[in-house]
């Protein structure tokens, strides 16, 4: 999927590649004595999926709301496709669309009434509006429930309608604030597909998520947010690599060999090896070349292995390392 997406990006004009969808410097937003956003810099190239990853209350939604003109920053500045979010707010609003954390649709109206009103507000004529409404209802599988008021809708259906509402006119920059929170796995996969389709037709996506696998699967780049700051930024691969090396797992056939296996592993790999289960030896894999030597040495010592596996670091580890406590964050990925 990653390959496919970069292939499409290559097809874009060089003009677009060089422009930034979002450029923010030193954004600050203070609520009372809480610095919800505390000096955030972002530069997000057009045509990518960019994820803000962080725990609840980290400031992700506040950052999104500054960039979509709902909140004025108390410090710093931000530009969307080169337009200032404060001074050229009306221009920025013509370039964005928003799918919020709580579905921004009118619960007292039906799905088709909601879509029609948004379409009319966006300047579509009456006939265009009803045509587009029908298309979107069909596309999101809501056609059967189009006339019902949303009070009778499930959470997932409201989310779908919310996304449909932001796609009446496809904006160059689409904000998705926790787009899949509370969705069942199947609807979540559908949402991911919709998001990828939007990028392939030219939109830039800024999404927030608390789900690491979502950021890993979907995002080209990730900014890890904690306490209103960007604590790390990079591609999913870079972030994982920065936090730690892959781990080698050796499952032994015989418990009696464990001590000897640890000794050999430490000697050959020149790292500390440990054991958490009676027959499992684990060690950091600094140099993959040395693993061959280790396996030969183990055979010479007549130690039999059941399985050998290499565990890549997960984003979970990255996340905990970066947002856990300050000391561990020090050795984190590229600090901005």
């Amino acid at each position, binding site marked *: 999927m990653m390959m496919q997406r970069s292939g499409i990006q290559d097809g*874009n*004009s060089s*003009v*677009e590649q060089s*422009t930034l*969808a979002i450029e923010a410097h030193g954004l600050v937003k203070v609520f009372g004595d809480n610095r919800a956003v505390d000096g955030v810099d972002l530069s997000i190239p*057009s045509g990518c999926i960019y994820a803000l990853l962080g725990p609840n209350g980290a400031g992700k939604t506040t950052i999104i709301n500054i960039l*979509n*003109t*709902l909140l004025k920053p108390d410090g710093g500045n931000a530009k*969307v*496709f*080169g*337009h200032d979010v404060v*001074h*050229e*707010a*009306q*221009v920025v*609003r*013509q*370039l*964005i*669309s*928003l799918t*919020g954390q*709580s*579905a*921004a*649709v*009118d*619960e*007292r*109206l039906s799905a088709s*009434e*909601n879509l029609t*009103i*948004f379409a*009319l*507000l*966006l*300047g579509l004529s009456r006939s265009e509006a009803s045509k587009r409404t029908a298309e979107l209802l069909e596309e999101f599988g809501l056609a059967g429930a189009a006339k019902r*008021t949303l009070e009778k809708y499930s959470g997932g259906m409201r989310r779908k309608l919310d996304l449909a*509402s932001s796609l009446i006119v*496809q904006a*160059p*920059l689409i904000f998705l604030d926790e787009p899949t929170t509370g969705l069942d796995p199947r609807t979540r996969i559908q949402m991911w597909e919709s998001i990828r*389709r*939007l990028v*392939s*037709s*030219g*939109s*830039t996506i800024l999404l927030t998520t608390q789900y690491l696998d979502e950021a890993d699967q979907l995002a080209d780049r990730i900014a890890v947010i904690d306490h209103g700051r960007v604590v790390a930024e990079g591609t999913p691969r870079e972030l994982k690599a920065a936090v730690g090396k892959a781990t080698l797992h050796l499952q032994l056939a015989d418990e009696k060999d464990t001590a000897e296996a640890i000794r050999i592993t430490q000697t050959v790999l020149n790292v500390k090896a440990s054991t958490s289960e009676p027959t499992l030896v684990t060690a950091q894999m600094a140099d993959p070349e040395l693993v061959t030597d280790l396996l030969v040495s183990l055979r010479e010592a007549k130690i039999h292995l059941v399985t050998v596996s290499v565990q890549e670091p997960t984003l979970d580890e990255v996340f905990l390392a970066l947002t856990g406590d300050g000391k561990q964050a020090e050795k984190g990925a590229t600090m901005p």
Partner: protein
Amino acid sequence: MTSQIVPGAQRRLKNRVTLRMTISNSLTMAYRNLLLIRRTPQQLFDVTIQPILFTLLFVYLLGGAISGSVGGYLPIIIPGILATTALTASMATGVQLREDMDKGVFYRFKSMPIARIAPLTGPLLADIVRYAIATSLCFVMGYLLGFRWASLAGALTGGVLVVFCAWCISWIFALLGVVLKTAQTVQGISTAILFPLSFLSGAFVPTNTLPWWLQDFVNINPLTYIVSAVRQLFNQGTIGNDFWLSLIGSIALVLIFAPLTLRAYMRKA
């Protein structure tokens, strides 16, 4: 969705909202409010039940005591009911605006490239329909009970005057709706304003029996002038000073409260 959209950086866009767009957006928002009324007809209780109930109640309860007979009281009470009902209906503007602004859908409106003022002007426009319903029902009730106006033109002018004044007064309640934090507070404060305005006026009783200090209040109460103007239009079919005073006073209200409301709203939006 396979075709490519125009890249954001290549679009030529203006940072201004045209008057045409403001009007078009306001009309769409008014349409939205009419849909909301259709979806939740309970919203119309104040403009349907009240005119019917109040007319019957006041006519039969007070008619004999105040005017000696039900028939004699009708020329006094029908214009009174008309004006107070419209005033009550205008109060709901503020409460509904507050409730609406707390809804999630307002976040979408705020992030859309529309006239910022449309979510405020739309509901105010739509409420004209509510005032028209209230006014028409008062006409029907009056007619059924035996009230006959001097001329149809006078009656219609009176109806239009009441709708216009109610719309002007609704800006006061719109300001409360924008400024106050909860719908309950808006309701509470609006009722506290509305109650003395309705009853301490010439709407239900002749004012010459009141103590002088109450008469003073009645004489500065704008509702007194609206009621008098409507009475003259209904019963004599003529336009008098009270008509012009009501009109000028209502326009003055708009000139004061519309800018205040717009400013408070824009600051929040």
